[in-house]
């Protein structure tokens, strides 16, 4: 933990906080956006990928001769080529599997790439795929998370010898004492399903290789570069400056799943190198639903040691995450990313954790929808309700009983998380008021008398934004960490420049996938420099040659609102300082006396002693000799900002895994039809503390989107496999994504508790409700079905599943 936490004072703003219309919308709505598929390069060829139809099999041989002779085919890349031309991807576990961008001698999930055909167009490439014959020797499959750990289970990777990729034990506080002091121990087992985020735009890569300069140029729609530019460089056996990644202005959604794009970046790059062509690959929907990326599925055993009055003294839990046929970076983050906020918004001081990360014959994972927090909070929030039920306590009251108090912030959790600011009581109370809680309980009493199944559910969760990459090293023990190199940080880079006429251009690298970052950046700069948002333009996509970035760069874990805004403010203030110094020099005044407002720099108290911003800008560029001695010419400033709260873990495995912590309270009222198992949402309140609100219109969109995602995960979405390892949800016919028809009216509320750790007081908001809603709907349905003795510990709660649970309970009772 830093000696002195760096804090900011916040002041009133003109533009930040206003619902300014998005700058991005004009080009998107008129079809002038530039997405990956809009990129046309000369002599571009097209790739199609042959994928394994088997979940687990040896590849005895591949015959591509007929396909190679098919007219229009330019070349074919197989696993044999990939093994010669690349190295396995590095991953942060002690004994890593050999994960290449293509199957070499074995396939380990349905959809795993086996070969790539490069042809004049996609039709030809697909036809050529049909002519490739692969001789597979099928092997027994392992699909169940717990069965994967048994010694009898088929082993996916012989070099590991078991299906356990990572395992660690953690102890915080004194759980033994907590058990001794407890009046009751409540136990639960929870199963969180595997599902993705299905962005409208699928993965896309256009790669070319220059054999003379031995470098790659790769267009892609990745959310990073994050750590993966470095990892792909290692895999391709090249230094990082020999691989240029370029992202187009627009990406059609990501939600974390596009951080799993990088193996395909390597694959298409190798296809380009082998064939000597520029190769374009656009993933089709079926490929995406088979072999892109999902969050992990997880089995959790949780025990709570509690007192009769509802105080939760400690938690013990064992969580087993499934990363599929291989494990790839940033996994095993699934087990460690939420370390700092593991105990949620509660004053729980004792915690024993066992984490396991295993493999089965399912497709691979990436951070998706709040990386690990959906899984964590489903268990934790269901547990809170189970404890309340055992104690005969109201589910709202038990939360108030255990919440962190407002005077305890900044609050350090037993696991090392530093919660910046919050008022959990206020946020939760607003949600309760919005659904008229007392009245709902009365209505529930009446409904139960009539035999109707009405339920009320809550979830109150902490939203951990801005990853501190230190968390990945928790996969190693303190002793192992001491021998290696520590990792830490959350940095983001911003360049701000002013042209000779006083207009501003900002260059950042957040690769927005629809969040509206450019609009917010314009608002911030307008406030700082006294210009109008229309005077500000933004370039905000990665070019690893031309832009400033580091291994933490990208859009993930809602880091824009906290770390990027602070970097923008800092860079803008550096520019403002320079402008004021120039003006002071030219006006022969003191810098401290100067102020900027609406395009003018003037002496406070003597407004006629002033000059136009554009004269300052003009001087900086056109009359460089007139600048103060020793000052750089022009008007450019940069900031690569990392939050000081991003420190490596200590020797007790404590780490501040995030840097700002927002809070959500969901309150949902449901009615379940006992005949059909269908769930109807009667009321839904969703209240958010995202700190200072940057743009209320954008925030509204983010909340609605995350609510829709949360609803999908609760009732509809599942990336399902049958017992033979076949993926049975490879189209939207079976993988159910909520539409406008499924999303009910949501009463959204906001409470602004600014973070002292960010320049504007904002925290993240993008992932919010997708983490809290599955737990809330689970709780609501559990409450509705409580009179029948139904236990809810899994998702999605489809009508089919609910109906069977009701029948099962009827038989028992």
């Amino acid at each position, binding site marked *: 933990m830093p000696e002195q936490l760096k804090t900011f004072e916040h002041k009133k703003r003109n533009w930040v906080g206003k619902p300014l219309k998005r700058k991005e919308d004009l080009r998107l709505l008129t079809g002038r956006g530039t997405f990956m598929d809009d990129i046309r390069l000369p002599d571009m060829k097209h790739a199609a990928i042959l994928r394994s*139809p*088997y*979940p687990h099999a040896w590849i005895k041989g591949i015959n591509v001769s007929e396909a190679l002779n098919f007219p229009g085919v330019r070349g074919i890349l197989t696993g044999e080529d990939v093994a010669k031309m690349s190295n396995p991807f590095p991953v942060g576990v002690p004994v890593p599997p050999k994960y290449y961008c293509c199957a070499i001698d074995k396939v380990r999930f*349905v959809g795993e790439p086996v070969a790539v055909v490069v042809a004049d167009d996609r039709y030809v490439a697909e036809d050529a*795929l*049909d002519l490739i014959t692969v001789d597979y020797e099928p092997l027994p499959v392992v699909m169940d998370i717990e069965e994967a750990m048994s010694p009898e289970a088929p082993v996916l990777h012989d070099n590991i010898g078991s299906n356990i990729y990572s395992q660690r034990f953690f102890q915080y506080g004194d759980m033994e004492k907590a058990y001794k002091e407890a009046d009751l121990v409540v136990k639960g087992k929870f199963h969180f399903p595997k599902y993705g985020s299905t962005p409208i735009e699928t993965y896309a890569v256009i790669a070319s290789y220059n054999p003379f300069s031995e470098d790659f140029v790769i267009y892609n729609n990745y959310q990073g570069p994050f750590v993966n530019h470095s990892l792909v460089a290692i895999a391709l056996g090249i230094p990082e400056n020999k691989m240029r990644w370029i992202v187009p202005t627009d990406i059609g959604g990501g939600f974390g799943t596009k951080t799993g794009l990088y193996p395909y970046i390597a694959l298409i790059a190798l296809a380009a190198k082998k064939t000597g062509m520029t190769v374009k690959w656009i993933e089709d929907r*079926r490929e995406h*639903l*088979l072999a892109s990326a999902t969050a992990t599925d997880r089995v959790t055993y949780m025990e709570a040691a509690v007192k009769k009055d509802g105080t939760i003294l400690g938690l013990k839990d064992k969580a087993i995450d499934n990363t599929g046929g291989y494990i790839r970076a940033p996994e095993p983050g699934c087990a460690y990313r939420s370390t700092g906020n593991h105990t949620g918004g509660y004053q729980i001081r004792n915690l024993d954790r066992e984490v396991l990360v295993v493999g089965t014959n399912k497709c691979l994972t990436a951070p998706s929808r709040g990386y690990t927090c959906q899984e964590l909070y489903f268990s934790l929030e269901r547990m809170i309700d189970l404890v309340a039920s055992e104690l005969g306590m109201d589910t709202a009251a038990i939360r108030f009983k255990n919440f962190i108090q407002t005077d305890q912030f900044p609050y350090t959790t037993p696991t090392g998380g530093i919660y910046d600011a919050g008022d959990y009581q206020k946020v939760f109370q607003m949600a309760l008021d919005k659904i008229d809680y007392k009245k709902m309980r009365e209505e529930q009493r009446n409904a139960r008398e009539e035999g109707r199944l009405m339920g009320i559910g809550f979830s109150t969760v902490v939203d951990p934004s801005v990853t501190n990459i230190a968390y990945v090293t928790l996969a190693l023990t303190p002793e192992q960490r001491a021998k290696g190199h520590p990792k830490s940080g959350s940095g983001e880079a911003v360049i701000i420049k002013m042209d000779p006429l006083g207009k501003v251009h900002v260059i950042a690298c957040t690769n927005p996938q629809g969040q509206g970052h450019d609009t917010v950046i314009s608002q911030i700069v307008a406030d700082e420099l006294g210009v109008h948002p229309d005077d500000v333009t933004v370039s905000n996509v990665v070019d690893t040659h031309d832009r400033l970035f580091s291994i933490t760069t990208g859009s993930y874990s809602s880091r824009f609102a906290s770390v990027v805004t602070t970097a923008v403010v800092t860079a803008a203030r550096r520019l403002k300082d320079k402008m004021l110094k120039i003006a002071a020099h030219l006006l022969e005044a003191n810098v401290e006396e100067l102020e900027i407002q609406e395009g003018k720099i003037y002496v406070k108290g003597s407004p006629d002693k002033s000059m136009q911003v554009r004269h300052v800008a003009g001087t900086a560029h056109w009359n460089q000799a007139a600048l103060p001695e020793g000052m750089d010419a022009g008007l450019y400033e940069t900031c690569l900002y990392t939050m000081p709260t991003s420190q490596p873990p200590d020797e007790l495995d404590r780490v501040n895994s995030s840097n700002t912590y927002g809070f959500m309270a969901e309150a949902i009222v449901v009615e379940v039809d006992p005949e059909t198992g269908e769930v109807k949402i009667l009321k839904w309140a969703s209240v958010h503390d995202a700190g200072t609100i940057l743009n209320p219109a954008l925030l509204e969109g983010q909340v609605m989107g995350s609510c829709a995602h949360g609803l999908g995960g609760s009732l509809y979405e599942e990336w399902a496999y*049958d017992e*033979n390892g*076949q*993926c*049975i*949800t*490879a*189209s939207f*016919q*079976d993988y159910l994504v909520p539409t406008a028809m499924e999303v009910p009216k949501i009463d959204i509320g906001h409470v602004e508790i600014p973070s002292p750790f960010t320049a504007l007081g904002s925290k993240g908001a993008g992932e919010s409700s997708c983490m809290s809603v599955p737990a809330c709907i689970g709780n609501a349905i559990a409450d509705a079905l409580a009179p029948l003795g139904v236990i809810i510990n899994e998702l999605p709660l489809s009508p089919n599943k609910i109906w069977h649970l009701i029948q099962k309970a009827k038989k028992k009772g």
Partner: protein
Amino acid sequence: MKIEGKYKFLASQEHIWDLFMDQKNLEKAIPGCEKMEEREPGKYDVLLKIGIAAIKGTYTGKVEVVDPEPPNRYRLLGEGSGSPGFVKGEATIEFSQEGQHTIVSYQGDMQVGGLIAGIGQRMIGGIAKMMAGQFFKKMAKQLKS
């Protein structure tokens, strides 16, 4: 997945057994069958062109008649693969006489993989039943001729 069904033929059990054992009849009756060649007695190579769940494709495969107990029952093993995926299955075919009719009933297990599994999983049971129905209808036609 499990598949089962039955069909009634107006003929004696021995007659129906012979009908089912004749490769020429099978070749005509199996939906989409373009070629059927006997490699060894009871073992056949087949080429099928069929649409499953609106996915048309060509499948090359093997069919094997095992444990024949004339004229009462035999087991059928089959597997085929093509660009749309692969199919693997086995079934027990039973014959029984009911007055002037012979009931042919089948009970089996089918596995599909690849494209057809991902897209048409929920339809496969129904499609299998439909194809079985087509097969039996065509066999019945050949009975008449």
